[in-house]
């Protein structure tokens, strides 16, 4: 009996021990990541300016992610219109479809789904690219050529994601609302005037700013997490693969957690 008890208590202490270790490691990594990101950001005003590299990154992240954002935005708007129409029809409120689609996309789905798409499309490639640069000693080579890799590699990517995500989310919103209009008005027969009137009446600038604030915060988070994961990746092929997976998981979960926090502040 006492053996059984001591076995149980040691299993519990082992469980809490490993939980504590995970928590400690998480806090350490959060601190390390924040410090690395801040070191990179502190170089923003230090010469040489990284304007050219920032524009290149903005192009790669922004224009490169445009197709996936348009496709995701279009189908999200279409599904919302379909689902919304049949739900609203039960209450005879089909005219509210425009407001429903618009609010869902602008306040929630645009920033969150847009961020997910950018994490998958651009965030993972940022981590893999930086990780491979570490494996092949390219970051060391930059150091030895008197070029700070934090300024050259990390900074432009963090700034580029912070700016690209809100722009892409805006495109997502417009495409989503437009495709919702096509499905609602052209396919399901909702009155076009009612769709647009409700959309304009119910959506305020507060909603739009809220969506943008979320997108800016998500973009910054994606940049910080994905660059950190790549920069601190174990310099092996397996290490880079693991870092890329972790970057996608951590950034996605981070977006969801931050979405809840921002929504609770902004509502």
């Amino acid at each position, binding site marked *: 009996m006492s053996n059984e008890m001591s076995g149980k208590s040691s299993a519990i202490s082992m469980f809490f021990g490993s939980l504590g270790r995970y928590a400690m490691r998480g806090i350490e990594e959060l601190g390390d990541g924040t410090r690395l990101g801040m070191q990179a950001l502190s170089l923003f005003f230090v010469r*040489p300016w990284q304007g050219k590299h920032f524009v290149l990154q903005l192009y790669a992240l922004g224009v490169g992610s445009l197709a996936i954002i348009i496709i995701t935005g279009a189908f999200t708007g279409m599904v919302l219109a379909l689902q919304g129409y049949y739900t609203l029809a039960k209450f005879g409120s089909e005219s509210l479809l425009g407001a429903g689609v618009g609010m869902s996309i602008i306040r929630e789905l645009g920033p969150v789904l847009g961020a997910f798409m950018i994490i998958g499309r651009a965030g993972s490639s940022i981590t893999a690219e930086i990780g491979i640069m570490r494996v*092949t*000693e*390219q970051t*060391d*080579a*930059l*150091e*030895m*050529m*008197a*070029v*700070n890799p934090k300024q050259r590699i990390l900074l432009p990517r963090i700034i580029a994601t912070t700016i690209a995500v809100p722009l892409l989310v805006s495109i997502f919103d417009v495409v989503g609302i437009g495709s919702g209009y096509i499905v609602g008005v052209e396919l399901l027969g909702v009155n076009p005037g009612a769709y647009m009137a409700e959309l304009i009446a119910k959506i305020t600038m507060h909603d739009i700013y809220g969506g943008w604030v979320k997108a800016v915060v998500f973009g910054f988070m994606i940049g910080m997490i994905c660059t950190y994961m790549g920069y601190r990746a174990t310099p092996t092929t397996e290490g880079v693969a693991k870092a890329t997976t972790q970057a996608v998981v951590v950034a996605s979960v981070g977006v969801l957690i931050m979405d809840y926090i921002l929504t609770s502040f902004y509502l």
Partner: protein
Amino acid sequence: MIRGENLSKRYGDVDAVASTDIHIKTGAITAIMGGSGSGKTTLLRLLSGLEIPTTGHVWYGDEDLCDMPDKRLYEVRESMGMLFQYSALLNSLNVYDNVAFPLHEHTDLDEDVIRTMVAMKLEQVGLRGFENLMPSELSGGMAKRVAFARAMAMDPRIVFFDEPTSGLDPISAGVISTLIHDTSKMNRMTSVVVTHDVSAGLAIADHVILMWQGRIIAKGPPDSIRESTDERVCQFLEGRPDGPIPFSRSTTSYIDDLTHRPGTVRLES
């Protein structure tokens, strides 16, 4: 010019470099030799400031490289060059842009002047005409030569070479060794060459340092190393499998490992 004082670098439980004092002679070629895992690359990375020592200091003139603010460190590095073991070419740039990279970063020279300088550097390594190739399109030897041209682009005062001839055919290795020797002498450059290629190391160096288990076991001009009676030095130079430097680095008994694992091997007496 560069001096390491009581340098140690510890990774986990392993001392990659242990309590080492080293003086790199200005204008000379210093070869750091030793077997795999002897700590020579770690020592090179400590001397170049790429690694922070666990203990000790690296003096660059009268400044401590380990305590330097980033701004000063990058200023100092403008007078340094490094050839990495796997070349470390920036793989998003072609050969021209790789060699021109330090010039674009640290000078205001006209593109025409930079083009001329790159052509001179590439001619020196026998690769003029390959400017548009990407690093993925180069052989190992060509990549090393491009990396050499890049390391020399700013006419540095000190150049670090990490295993410059490893993995190369004898001709390419000979070309690289000759380039290191001739360029160092011509430009009165301080060169630190990490290598386990005994013949190349002894042939080009003015000063040789031999390492084992993170410590310097012999140093001096190549002739004094060749004539050394130290068993460890002789074993390394002659490449003998038996001697005081063991091949196996296992820390546990082989028999114990085999017999104490359940369901493996049982040795009957």
